[in-house]
């Protein structure tokens, strides 16, 4: 899902995507506290489907693309901060 996107580009996106998650969801965390490879659902941040829809909206406004669950694996995109940043890096139009 992250064709033509370098690990450096993804790494550079991590802090701003972490900030986006925190501000969109009002989490009591700092960006540095979101581990890039820890799960966002379940045992990690414990996000749920309400959060995902809220995030999807913010992501579409900020990066100019719509999330789809039938052409990409919904769970995989949101499995960690790094997978989400990779997806954004590959799909963004702005």
């Amino acid at each position, binding site marked *: 899902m992250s064709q033509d996107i370098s690990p450096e580009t993804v790494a550079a996106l991590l802090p701003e995507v972490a900030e986006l998650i925190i501000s969109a969801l*009002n*989490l*009591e965390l700092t960006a540095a506290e979101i581990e890039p490879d820890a799960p966002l*659902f*379940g*045992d990690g941040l*414990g*996000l*749920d*489907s*309400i959060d*995902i*829809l*809220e995030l*999807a*909206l913010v992501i*579409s406004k900020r990066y100019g693309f*719509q*999330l*789809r*669950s*039938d052409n990409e694996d*919904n769970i995989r995109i949101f499995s960690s901060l790094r997978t989400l940043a990779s997806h954004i890096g590959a799909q963004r139009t702005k």
Partner: protein
Amino acid sequence: MSTLPLLGHASLDEIFAYRPSGPRRVRDFLADAQALADRLPPNRHLLNVCQDRYHFAVGLAGGLLRGKTSLQPSSQSAETLRQVKLDCPDVLCLCDSNFDSLDLPRLNFPELSDADPQRVTAIPHIPADHPAVRVYTSGTSGQPTPHGKSWRSLVKNGRAAAHHLGSAGHCAVGTVPAQHMYGFESTILLALHGNTPFWSGKPFYAQDIVAALQAVPAPRLLVTTPFHLSALLAAGLDLPAVDLLLSATAPLSSGLAREAEKRLAAPLYEIYGCTETGQIASRRTTADLTWKLLDAIHLEQGDGQSTVFGGHVEGRVVLSDVIERLDAEHFLLHGRHADLINIAGKRTSLAYLNHQVAAIPGVTDGAFFQPDEETPDGITRLAAFVVAPGLNRRELLAALRQRVDSIFLPRPLIFVDRLPRNATGKLPREQLQTLYSERNGHACH
């Protein structure tokens, strides 16, 4: 023995459902259901967690053909699965995803390549008294409370809903799960007994909903919630024309209702009901705030309680909302009783949640709290106060996640040295509100 047909269709060649691969006729569906039925082991109870709505329907019908009961808990947390197994020890879990079924016996939804639609000659019948479905509500004691529904009641429910909504001939796109009572009635039962075929997918993102609507022929019915609807409208996409909109599970603001009707060019009806009764009333939110009962449903009030009976409702059911009866057909809804929680359509009670947090080893006291500031379209997060000197935040949340749906996980989770219990051990709401105001916004552990 009195029986009722599995499907209400007049012809085996009518469309039952739409899948990405194309329409499924009644005869295709019946062939699939029989082929699945032939593969089911003897377990009498099926926990059908199929994500694909068509798979769910085939699982339900296949189970009915073999005299099985479909178990439909309101959550799929590990603790709920454990409770369901206690309630029905011979449960079999039917899955079409990588769902974690723990130690339950499991059947992955099989390829039904031997299903032969040409061999289907008639719509089978099911005994009317058969306990077709067992739904669960979260009881106040911490145990899910089961409610049986007979096949007769489900057939009546599907017929009454289709008649009330005028949904026959529409194709339903549902953003809600087939297992949850609202989604079950408004997609599965409408398809079985209301001539309302469904789209097999469960679109989630705004763009998915648009694509699903475009994939089915008009007239279209969108079965959704305030939460999905507001995300759909906020996405700023071009929306296809819809012919009928249904919303349930949480209060819908009239602003969102007006915008939805305008953007989707369709009347929007809110559905009212609960797990025990199924849907019992509706209203067109932009036109009238009073709710109209479905035909044959009666509402009685007395002793501070509202009770419904008749139609598809089995027995008499006391409603847990604050209701004002206006006449034989109409009522006003004044909100929930204080103990009840409804977030994005998932229901539970504070008593249930308090029981779950207190049962975690290391927690000496704990209380959930629903803050006052409720947002209009139904998503207010819960807070919780816990006394748990030996646990950190991550450990406690991990333990809680095993027991309650993640929607109810506290945000914030506030560690305290003790709870402000009064002399009788009760926790006055005002005390919790004060504590919440003091602590909310501060980082905790």
